């Protein structure tokens, strides 16, 4: 049981990295990776939201959708749950934990329509994970996202000082960097 869980987590954090091999959550990955500090902030917010969202969507699926034979409504149900959840988390943090809100608050609205959140929820259902596995998978996936975005931000800070050919400045060089990172992450295939 524990061993299976560990393999699933390693798989979703490194081997099938959410951005570098599944292409989910590319927008924040490319958009919020200019500085390491903001990348860390975005990464923590994503870990926070995806872990809670996988827990809640898993419960909604098992206890509401499956129970009433409404599995086909999962896309609609999940996107609504996620949107409401992000709003709620934002309000909750604002009221009860202002320091956490100050560090994560800016990133929260950006996460609502992040395809990684919906992607993880749908993957959990597709692979028929139980509650604990879903939460573990969500956590590991978002940790994978955070690892990738922090590495990218670190590299971009260095690229900023280099003489990049003019046409490649901005998005193209970032995409090339991401490509090389994806290539490097191929190396983790040997882990499993």
């Amino acid at each position, binding site marked *: 049981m524990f061993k299976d869980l560990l393999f699933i987590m390693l798989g979703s954090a490194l081997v099938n990295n959410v951005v*570098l*091999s*599944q*292409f*989910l*959550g*590319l*927008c*924040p990955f*490319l*958009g*919020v990776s200019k500085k390491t500090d903001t990348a860390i902030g975005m990464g923590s917010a994503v870990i926070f939201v995806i872990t809670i969202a996988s827990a809640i969507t898993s419960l909604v699926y098992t206890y509401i959708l499956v129970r009433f034979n409404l599995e*086909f*409504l*999962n*896309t*609609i149900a999940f*996107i*609504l749950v996620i*949107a409401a959840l992000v709003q709620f988390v934002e309000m909750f943090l604002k009221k009860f934990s202002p320091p956490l809100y100050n560090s994560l608050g800016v990133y929260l*609205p*950006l996460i609502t*329509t*992040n*395809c990684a959140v*919906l*992607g993880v929820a*749908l*993957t959990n259902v*597709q692979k028929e994970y139980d509650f604990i596995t879903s939460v573990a998978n969500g956590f590991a996936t978002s940790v994978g996202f955070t690892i990738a975005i922090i590495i990218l931000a670190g590299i971009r800070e260095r690229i900023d000082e280099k003489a990049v*050919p*003019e*046409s*490649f*400045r*901005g*998005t*193209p*060089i*970032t*995409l*090339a960097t*991401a*490509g*090389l990172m*994806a*290539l490097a992450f*191929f190396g983790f295939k040997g882990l499993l």
Partner: protein
Amino acid sequence: MKIFERLYNGVVKENPTFVLMLGMCPTLAVTTSALNGMQMGLTTLAVLAASNLIISLFRSVIPNKVRIPSYIVIIASLVTVVQLLLQAYLPSLYSALGIYIPLIVVNCIILGRAEAFASKNPPLVSLFDGIGMGLGFTVALTLIGMLRELLGAGTVFGFNVLPQSVEPISIIIMAPGAFFVLCWINAAINKIKKKNPKSHATAKSCGDCAGCSMSGVCSGTKQD
């Protein structure tokens, strides 16, 4: 007249992939072959045209304050319908695109067009705006898919094109290749834009954040 203008606008002037840089996730993920790219494009076209039509029909009924959630519910319902239809009638397509079909819900092109066009214009024009944008997306995905399939497998739409002696670069159809190909395309677009700065609509995504659903929020540059 207006209809043709909309189609031209979607395919050429404001091509969602090449000009506006929206919907990058599916663009990278499903363009492993020309056929996959085209199928994804057509699926998105169906959802986009239907959502534009419905949102335009209801544009005076939907209260302004809850318009985004309403659009999301409409789009999610349409995606579910399309998903069930594909599962029933085109199971091979359904399994090839997998999780990327339900993820059409969070494709920013659809919500972007709903917000920018369908909510302000009459139904027929909105329908053709959706078809135009969808065609633009399909053309872009097919072209990228063809390029990747040609370089990575030596085939186009499954037909052998390159002679046996040419070794295909298989990395191009794997995950890193998607980033590399998009990098080249982006660099080429930058080059063209620099040569004739006036002839192209500016990419209304926020800076170099490659569009997607965040374009409306991430730096306040709401596209219109």
